[in-house]
């Protein structure tokens, strides 16, 4: 997928694939923090994390979800779960969990 010309940057694809393979068991959804990500990048993330729902840059991750940050971690990130190539996985910050839409 990453080799499709002009589609996505390879590092982003590697990050998503790494995150998908290392999601903690029981994860109910993924809050993706990727500043500047366009619709296509969002759809690729949703496809990669299927069957889990994905929200792009939500103000807060719903309970039971995990945060995947591409690039620098968001300031309000919770505990680091795993460092990944190009980003990291965080548990939602205490007091910062929202409701699933």
């Amino acid at each position: 997928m990453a080799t499709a010309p002009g589609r996505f940057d390879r590092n982003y694809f590697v990050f998503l694939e790494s995150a998908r393979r290392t999601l903690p068991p029981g994860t109910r959804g993924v809050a993706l923090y990727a500043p500047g990500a366009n619709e296509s990048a969002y759809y690729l993330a949703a496809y990669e994390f299927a069957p889990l729902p994905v929200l792009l840059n939500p103000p807060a991750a719903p309970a039971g979800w995990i945060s995947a940050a591409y690039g620098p971690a968001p300031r309000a990130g919770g505990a680091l779960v795993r460092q990944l190539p190009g980003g990291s996985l965080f548990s939602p910050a205490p007091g910062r969990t929202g409701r699933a839409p």
Partner: protein
Amino acid sequence: MSPLASSFLETGIHLLTAAAAGFLAVRALHPPGRGRTAERIGWGIALGLSAIAASAYLATATGIEPRFWFPALLLAGIMLGYFFRTREGAPVPPEDSPARLRPLYALLVAAIAAGVVLYAARALIRPMWSIDFLAIWGLKGRSIFSSGGVPAWLSDSRLAGWSHPEYPLGLPLLYAGTAALLRTWDDHAMALLFPAFQIATLAVLYGWLRRRGTGRGIALCATALLALFEPLYSGFLTGMADVPLALTMLLLGVSLSDALDRTDRRAMARLALASVLASSVKNEGLFLAAVAAALALLSRTETDGGRRRRVALAAILPALLLTAATRASRGSPPLRDFDFGLLAPSRLGEFLSRAAETISVDLNIAGRAWIILPAIAVLLISGLAAPWAGRLLWLAAAALAVYLALPAFAVLGPQWLAETTLFRTSAALAPLAAAGIAGRLASRDAAAER
């Protein structure tokens, strides 16, 4: 053997098994015999792929794996084909292969083969990658495969409105079923489904034209042109619903024509099956089934009003039932891309402005097809009216009219919808158009011979 080659091989074996079983099951729909093989191959592929999708559906409904349902369905299909086989049907016109034309026929067969090989290359060179595959068809297929059901969030317009919860699940179920047979989600090997769709379409087109009396040359020409029609058989559309929809719309059209002309007793069953297949792929399938029903009711060649109504029911009822069952289980998400409130009298001015913009955008896009459109016009004029072929052209024209008009209601504006969809959705009408035009040309030939 590399993992990729191994995955392709395994996918190919599953698809061939499904198609072979479908070919045997088709005995219940088509009589055997010389001259009917191509059409039976096309229907057989369609039935085989439907069995894969149905196995995934049954798995979501029962919790029993698709790997159990798949052989069970194939076996059931083969038994149906055996016990309900039909031998009745109009004789196929004899072969017409004058020696002087044989090199031309060989050239056309080579062109068809080249079209298949070229599309296979475009489809298989990399994993399915188009945005609509990622956001809609692949996402849903992967979700069904990975979770063993249809996750509820896929019907939640707030979480997945962009993936069109209102679309039918036929293609995602086919992906999920294929992945279940492979025991893994392989979006590269599964692209093999698309050359299979193309081969089925070409086989039905050629076989039907020949069965309805079209000369070998015209039938081969139409099939070769379709095989080489890159706007439909492109790498971009591989993974999306347009290629399978093109096949199911053709099945619907040829079955409608057969049923109205009473070519054989199983024509009505084929029409009902095609109605289900078309409406399981995209919402347009339901619309086309409704148009087919209207054409049946308005038919002037069928004088028996009761028969016209039965054909109309066979065209629309299966599609309606499938759509109702889908809505009952998944709800009725809104058509979020469209704002039909524009039809309200208070918004007449806005609607007229959008209609004008839509006409302008449509003309602009049609201008890009400046080579194709005059050629189609010349071919249409060159032929003679033939109801058996004209019905397919009416189906294509009705769908085209909707595709041209819908941008006026697009929430993001006519320009956006027309630019992103008009070319590819219109391209999916090519098999219907090819069959209809070839039929008209065949009628001219027949008239000249008389």
